[in-house]
């Protein structure tokens, strides 16, 4: 890999000219996203006067966007010094911004089709802070972006060790920047793997989206078909139950196909790499993403499976990093499907001591069954009964829901357990799907114990462990146990000198 000289990065410089195209594309996208209903209506019901109006507006929009993208591009400069990334931008309103490296949480790459075509990347920087500051340099040559990323990450380590090492008189020498060289490929998902994963995704959600989409368009469909035909179609649907079932089945198949297509596009050529600093993930076809996760920043690990995934031996894996709340989605490193081997590697990297520790296993209180039956059985069935009151006695048909929910949750409670050790926690729950969490105590930011009135009477509590990457809850623990656990975890946090990030 070509090495970029540090000195070159320290001069104010512009991004790659591809940025102009990127800015243009983004402007167009926003316009089309807000104006597409107008376009659809126009094509269905063209009116001649409207046409010339639209043409004028379109030309004006194109001109203004092009000029504005050019201006933005020519007035954007960036450069690095020892401690910060400096940005200068704006023509009318000049802005000078400095981003200290130690406030930078993650540096990721994204590539849209345009980027991929020209072999440039968009450098995305997330900073610490509750406002959720995100920043990006929209187009850079790949070597340059990698050099910048390496430099920032290595400077962060040097600064961190300088702070810890007060005695040392050695100053870190600035050497020519080199891109990460040691990378081990842990996983690469083929199209077949992605199809397996797509098969095991949540199809109900896709169906929900399709139905919502169709309802949204119902007015336009009505205009398209004309009022009479529309009435006939809906009447036909209402009377033929059989047709409805066939349609539902067709819907399911369509949703399955759409999910498969979406999964393949989103995670195309998914690669998981292990680097010296942590992990790297590259994925996507139309938009190619490159995310990196430093070991230090990973707060907790989650993995989950469901019956279909288990058939293929697959797990979904989530690496939750330290994040400001506004950018949580980007800081979640999500691996849509991997095998036991990768889960183990990730666990070992995050928590090397785990294998040698002794974990004691604990169950939660069976009273949780009562709460879940209330929320998922009693209240919904009462609600459904009320809604179907006009069916008379038939509305009682919702009552059997309650014992079904009870039995389900009885097994749910049996499969909920947590494991405690001196250094960390493991939880496992779920009946049909199974979710597991691994958390090191020193990553915890604060602990809370919560009790509802019902729980207070039974001496039970929910205990919450909050981390910078999300929280972990153990519900319905005996109060004395929860208190002892809280005291212990606080002790561990307060004596542990390690940095949690």
């Amino acid at each position: 890999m070509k090495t970029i000289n540090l000195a070159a990065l320290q001069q104010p410089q512009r991004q790659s000219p591809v940025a102009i195209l990127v800015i243009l594309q983004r402007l167009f996208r926003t316009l089309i996203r807000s104006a597409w209903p107008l376009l659809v209506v126009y094509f269905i019901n063209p009116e001649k006067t409207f046409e010339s109006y639209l043409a004028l507006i379109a030309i004006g929009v194109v001109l203004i966007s092009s000029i504005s993208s050019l201006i933005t591009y020519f007035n954007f400069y960036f450069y690095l010094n020892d401690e910060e990334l400096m940005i200068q931008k704006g023509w009318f309103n000049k802005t000078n911004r400095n981003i200290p490296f130690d406030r930078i949480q993650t540096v990721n790459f994204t590539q849209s089709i345009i980027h991929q075509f020209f072999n440039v990347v968009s450098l995305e920087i997330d900073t610490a802070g509750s406002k959720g500051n995100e920043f990006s340099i929209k187009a850079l040559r790949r070597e340059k972006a990698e050099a910048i990323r390496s430099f920032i990450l290595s400077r962060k380590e040097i600064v961190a060790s300088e702070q810890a090492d007060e005695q040392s008189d050695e100053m870190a020498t600035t050497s020519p920047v080199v891109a990460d060289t040691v990378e081990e490929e842990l996983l690469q998902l083929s199209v077949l793997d992605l199809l397996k994963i797509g098969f095991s995704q949540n199809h109900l959600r896709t169906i929900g989206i399709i139905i919502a989409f169709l309802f949204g368009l119902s007015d336009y469909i009505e205009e398209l078909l004309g009022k009479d035909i529309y009435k006939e179609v809906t009447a036909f649907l209402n009377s033929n139950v059989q047709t409805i079932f066939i349609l539902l089945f067709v819907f399911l198949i369509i949703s399955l196909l759409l999910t498969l297509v979406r999964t393949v596009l989103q995670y195309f050529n998914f690669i998981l790499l292990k680097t010296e600093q942590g992990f790297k993930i590259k994925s996507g076809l139309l938009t190619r993403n490159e995310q990196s996760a430093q070991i230090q920043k990973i707060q907790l690990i989650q993995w989950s499976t469901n019956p279909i995934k288990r058939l293929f031996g697959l797990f979904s894996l989530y690496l939750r990093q330290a994040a400001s709340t506004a950018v949580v989605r980007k800081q979640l490193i999500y691996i849509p499907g991997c095998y036991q081997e990768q889960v183990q590697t990730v666990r070992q990297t995050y928590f090397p001591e785990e294998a040698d520790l002794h974990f004691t296993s604990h169950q939660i209180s069976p009273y949780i069954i009562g709460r879940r039956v209330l929320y998922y059985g009693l209240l919904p069935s009462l609600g459904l009964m009320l809604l179907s009151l006009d069916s008379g006695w038939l509305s009682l048909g919702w009552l059997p829901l309650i014992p079904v929910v009870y039995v389900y949750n009885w097994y749910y409670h049996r499969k909920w357990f947590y494991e405690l050790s001196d250094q960390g926690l493991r939880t496992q729950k779920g009946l049909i799907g199974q979710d597991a969490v691994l958390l090191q105590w020193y990553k915890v930011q604060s602990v809370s114990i919560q009790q509802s009135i019902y729980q207070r009477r039974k001496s039970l509590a929910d205990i919450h462990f909050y981390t910078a990457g999300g929280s972990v809850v153990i519900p319905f623990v005996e109060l004395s146990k929860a208190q002892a656990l809280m005291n212990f975890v606080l002790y561990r946090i307060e004596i542990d000198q390690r940095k949690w990030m």
Partner: protein
Amino acid sequence: MLFENSHIDLDQLPQVEATPLQSLAPAYPKVMHIGNVILYSILGLILLPVWFKTELSTHPLAYIVPLIWVFLYLSSTFLVSWSYRVQGYAIRERDIIYRRGVFFRKTTVIPFNRVQHCEVKQGPVERFFNLSSLEVYTAGGQSSDLRIPGLAGDLASQLKSFIIKRTAAHEDH
């Protein structure tokens, strides 16, 4: 037995549940009451035009609406004193404890070496009673941040200085 093979005697650890909690300032319930009065007056003001302008007042069950309004106001007022009895905080050597909540009781503990920053806030009603609130932020998200209201006079600022000193002493992130 919570742990085996642990070289730490769990009974020797400091216990959150045994820590005596400080109450908030005695004037604080007045702040809560005033807040309630304002809230329900606004609600009432919104309801009045709805009542007179729409057909709501002609509905046979219409009288339920003002009844609910009165009921809610009375319950909130009653809950103020209960809530005040539950609310309490404590500063220990290495962390801060805060308890609150009538229906859902929550005790939160933030170790000083995990504090991101603190703020002292004071609303207009609080200012009138010479009270302020202390907000302690962590990196753990909003649910783990603390807000201790009803601290008299300088207390909130003093606590803030104390916590900042303790946080700096640990030299964590």
